């Protein structure tokens, strides 16, 4: 591969990324950082957990993304009585014109490129776990038969931080399968004014597809493969490994204050999936920066959304009001000191 081709590939990635972001920004006012993180997760091949209060634009973001990428989109509203088959699909008895009856698999809403699981914590753990196999292995198994999901497959699940009654906290295994967790904040006053101005008119703005419909899935997969080609030097891998180890109470070392904080406030640290998320996210950041290799800064920029939902905090943390993001920030500071 010649340098010119590689440079052109990077520029193509940057252009596509910027175009999708711009199209989403037409309908989503504010949340620029959240949109960038969601797009990063999409091209890194991961899934995103979005947390925000109702009416803040979670669903709009996901729908806008699907329209911009010109990919299929499904939405599942998670409720207490939702069953796994309602997500994955089920087999029904189908009677042929000849009168013969046979079981036919009817795909569920999970068979789409982009899946929005709205208020995922309202479903029972059994239903939530229906997503586990789909998110990790991109397939579902119904009645002993595995069905491959389409590519690209991207799950965005939302969490409502209020109205916690009747909700089921996501199991750690489920949380670990999300590449990033994005927090959506309230829009500022100026953003709110813009929202009012654009959404209450007779002709609200719409998203124009960036990718051609017939080639959209292939193009998305091509860009995802390009991300994986980005070079990661051993020193960056060591840095990521050290960073993840610092989040675990057993591995916290080197810096007294962080070590104390992690041991006091963290019950379980980030898993190897966290390290993978750091590297994959950093690769996207490197490409966006026009580099064919990952640096420390790429890792640092992506550390908080990649690690904060993987830390199991202790009761002491809840009592002290210490959030997982606070621990990740402190761990980042310690890791920077260790690497210098």
């Amino acid at each position, binding site marked *: *591969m010649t340098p010119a081709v590689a440079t052109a590939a990077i520029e193509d990635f940057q252009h596509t990324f910027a175009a999708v972001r711009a199209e989403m920004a037409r309908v989503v006012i504010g949340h620029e950082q959240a949109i960038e993180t969601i797009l990063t997760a999409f091209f890194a091949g991961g899934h995103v957990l979005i947390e925000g209060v109702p009416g803040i634009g979670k669903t709009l973001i996901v729908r806008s993304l699907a329209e911009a990428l010109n990919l299929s989109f499904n939405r599942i509203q998670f409720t207490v009585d939702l069953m796994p088959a309602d997500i994955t699909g089920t087999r029904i008895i189908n009677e042929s014109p000849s009168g013969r009856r046979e079981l036919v698999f009817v795909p569920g809403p999970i068979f789409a490129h982009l899946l929005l699981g709205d208020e995922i914590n309202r479903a029972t753990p059994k239903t939530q776990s229906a997503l586990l196999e789909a998110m990790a292995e991109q397939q579902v198994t119904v009645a002993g038969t595995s069905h491959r999901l389409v590519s690209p497959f991207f799950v965005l699940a939302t969490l409502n931080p209020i109205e916690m009654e009747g909700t089921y906290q996501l199991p750690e295994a489920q949380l670990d399968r999300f590449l990033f967790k994005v927090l959506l904040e309230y829009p500022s006053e100026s953003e709110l004014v813009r929202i009012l101005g654009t959404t209450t008119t007779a002709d609200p703005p719409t998203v124009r597809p960036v990718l051609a419909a017939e080639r959209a899935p292939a193009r998305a997969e091509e860009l995802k493969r390009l991300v994986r080609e980005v070079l990661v030097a*051993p020193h960056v891998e060591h840095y990521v490994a050290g960073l993840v180890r610092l989040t675990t109470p057993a591995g916290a070392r080197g810096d007294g204050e962080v070590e104390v904080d992690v041991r006091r406030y963290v019950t379980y640290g980030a898993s190897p999936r966290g390290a993978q998320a750091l590297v994959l996210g950093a690769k996207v950041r490197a490409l966006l920066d026009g580099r064919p290799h990952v640096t*420390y800064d790429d890792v640092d920029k992506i550390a908080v959304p990649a690690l904060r939902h993987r830390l199991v905090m202790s009761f002491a943390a809840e009592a002290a009001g210490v959030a997982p993001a606070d621990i990740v920030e402190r761990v980042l500071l310690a890791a920077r000191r260790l690497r210098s």
Partner: protein
Amino acid sequence: MPELTPTGAVDIAQRQVRRVRRRKNLYELQRALYLTVATGAGAAAILLPLALFAPAEVFAIAAWSALLIITGIVLLLAGAARRRWLARHAAVVWIETRGALGGRLRTLLELAARPARTPGFFHALLVAQIGRDLETWTPRRLVPRGVPRVALASAFAATVLLAVVLRLASLAGPATPNLITSDEPGGRAGAPGDTTTGERVVVAPEVPQPGGDHPDPTSDGAGDDDSTLTRLPSALQENVRQQVWGKAWERVRDALARAGTSGGGSRSPDTTTEYGDESGTDADDNEEWEIARAPSGETTRRRRPGIGRQPAARNDEGATDATDATDADAANRPTAGNGESDDGEGGGGAGNGTSPGDLFGAASVAGSPANGSFELSLAARMRADRAGARRGTRSAPNPDPDARPELAANQRRESAAHRMAVPAAYETVVREVFAHHRTESEQP
């Protein structure tokens, strides 16, 4: 520039990293060296005048302080050089930082060091970028100066300053002091400790101390601690003076040694006799009789052996008797100045009389009492001159019956003659000082 192959780019980058590292480390080494030289020369420029002109106590304090400061500075310089030293694994990181390479070089070299792995999609681009960046991190760009100018200038300036100080110090050589003897306790001229380089040296009994303690006249005022660490500054000071002033300092030492020798003589109690330089020391013309005193701290200060002076015989008892046996024994001994002992042992008479380090031979051990002192039979009639006590050539003159010595205006102060504990190591020196020398006219 021809397009680089991945392997060629790695080789070129590694060679350039080595060159940068070599230049940077050489620079740091030079800087540490020059700053060390500057520190040493600067300290020497400060210490040199102190060694030449300051009292021993001041010089000792200054020397130890300078040693501590220099040690601290050198440690700091060594630490700084160690921090700035580019280790092999740190060289690439330093180059990345200084050259603003954004991690490209490190990534390329680390990936090249990995076991066989197919080059990735972006590897060619990385190689091309490294080839483009080669000119931005050349050794001359990252380490612009081959010589640390400030450090070199500091070293040069300190060395020049030291040379100037050395030159000025050698020009300001010491004047040979005039010897003044006085029986007044404490003398009448000059401070008690100011007898080393002043123009006049007062040889006088010591002012009695309230506690009855008397300083060791050989300790040079540096305290009673006779350890090596205590003697080091004095030895250094003496060595500096010897090196800088040479012959002039030897003359001063000779004069001081004579002061130590003549300090045992008894002159008219109320008279202070001033001596000139070595002129006017005609022994025959100034010969007179007197009683030698005990060599305690009350009667002498600064007893320094003169260079080339003949050491005393171990036992000088009977020196005033001048018996035939003694004369025969003296006739069998070598002539004055050779300084060799006739019994073959160390101590009195040993040494060749020319080597400052072995002037009087090794200290005598055999026969020295266990308490570290020895007896000198000094309360005897002897003939003395300005150059020191020696045997007379004439019989004692009769006292003038009409002579009526003037009475002193005040009663002389009664001060006990303390017997001083003299270390055995100084026995030969003391014997030399109080030896009864023979003149050439007495040679058989």
